[in-house]
């Protein structure tokens, strides 16, 4: 009897590990500092503390060099905190096997970072292949995902990245990140290199997709308009520190010079002065 209950507990634990839907998709930064060393001048981010709840879309907003991308890389252990810890899915990143951790976190970057020698299908199937899914499951997953991101599987499956437009590449990048159904999605200015029309199109579609998928998303951008459209919460960074943490509705009412600088960038006059 005792053995039986132990086995059951074990199988539940294993389920929690293998089934991403049951895994805890939350992220907590606990007084995280990252820098070349701990002297104040070499810190890239300092004393960062925030949590991302399950299903939330957190936008990290800030100018170039404010530390947004560093925070993102601390989540999937591309970087390890110099001080403090980042807890992802219930465990500090330092204790995770980096390979296991990263395969449970989708990652989309500017220009998509698609493998130029792989077809669209091979790109999307990368993590499922690494996870040794069987061929029929992979191929049905690939067409499902292509349809999800608005690309016709018949037309696009065997193309190479250089045969795609920037917007199409980015769609494939999103499909690739979603392939193994990770509970967490990290996005680093994914729409930054696109022309304004395509960017607006992808932002709208992605916003709807994000709501539908219910993933925990951390999204990096320097574009307040994009942040307001996608975020359930916005964190504003300035020189590696958090200066504002608010919902999109509250954000523009915060009295802080960096917030005012960002809201001013929205006004049509901002362009005229430049």
């Amino acid at each position: 009897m005792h053995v039986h209950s132990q086995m059951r507990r074990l199988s539940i634990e294993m389920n929690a590990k293998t089934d991403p839907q049951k895994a805890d998709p939350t992220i907590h930064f606990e007084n995280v500092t990252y820098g070349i060393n701990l002297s104040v001048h070499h810190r890239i981010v300092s004393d960062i503390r925030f949590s991302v709840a399950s299903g939330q879309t957190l936008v990290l907003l800030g100018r170039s060099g404010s530390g947004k991308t560093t925070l993102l890389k601390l989540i999937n252990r591309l970087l390890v905190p110099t001080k403090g810890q980042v807890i992802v899915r219930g465990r500090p990143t330092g204790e995770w096997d980096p390979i296991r951790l990263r395969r449970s976190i989708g990652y989309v970057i500017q220009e998509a970072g698609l493998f130029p020698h792989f077809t669209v299908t091979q790109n999307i199937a990368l993590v499922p292949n690494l996870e040794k899914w069987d061929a029929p499951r992979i191929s049905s997953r690939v067409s499902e995902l292509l349809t999800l991101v608005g690309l016709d599987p018949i037309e696009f499956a065997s193309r190479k990245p250089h045969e795609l437009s920037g917007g199409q590449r980015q769609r494939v990048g999103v499909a690739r990140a979603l392939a193994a159904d990770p509970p967490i999605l990290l996005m680093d200015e994914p729409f930054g290199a696109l022309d304004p029309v395509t960017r607006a199109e992808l932002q709208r579609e992605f916003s709807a997709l994000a709501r539908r998928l219910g993933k925990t998303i951390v999204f990096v951008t320097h574009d307040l308009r994009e942040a307001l459209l996608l975020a359930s919460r916005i964190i504003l960074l300035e020189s590696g520190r958090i200066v504002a943490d608010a919902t999109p509705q509250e954000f523009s009412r915060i009295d802080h010079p960096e917030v005012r600088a960002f809201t001013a960038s929205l006004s049509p006059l901002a362009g005229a002065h430049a």
Partner: protein
Amino acid sequence: MNAWTFFLEHRAEILEATANHLTLVLIAMAFAIVIGVPLGMFIVHRATLRNVALGLASVFQTIPSLALFGFLIPIPFIGGIGRRTAIVALVLYALLPILRNTYVGLTGIDPAVLEAAQAMGMTESQILWRVRLPLARTVILAGIRTATIITIGVATIAAAIGAGGLGTFIFRGVAMVNDAVILAGAIPAALLAIAADILLGLLERRLKIS
């Protein structure tokens, strides 16, 4: 006696020397590739070994070829008179372009691609075999192409230590002050180099991803 009649009269001999020359080059290139490419892969993440390997390969490249053949003769096992010594010297010459291009090709990958590979949970060896190597293959092949052309040229000097090949005619012609005999070695060697360049160039173009 003009060059043409010399060619016709000695065509069997020239053909045999060309075949010898080609074998010498092919054997040397096979060794150079088998050593150079894996070594290039091995030094991607090892800075100290990388400096030693690239430095050493550069040093071999700077030794005049005739001197290198001479230096190798007294060395036991790899030295002596004949083909084996010649092949060792040719491998040492061919190593630098192959090693350097392999290293440069493997490390010159778009950082966004490498970051994506790492972030998606590929291990270092998966990144090396499935991302770096396929993307570096044209650069590696360009190194092999350069090395082949160098080796075809340097192999003519191997005749000085009794390794045979087209150099035999060149050395004989120099000794006899006879241009026809020199050309009987020089022209086939030049043609071999041009043919290798064209063939490997075609292969390189086919492997290009765009």
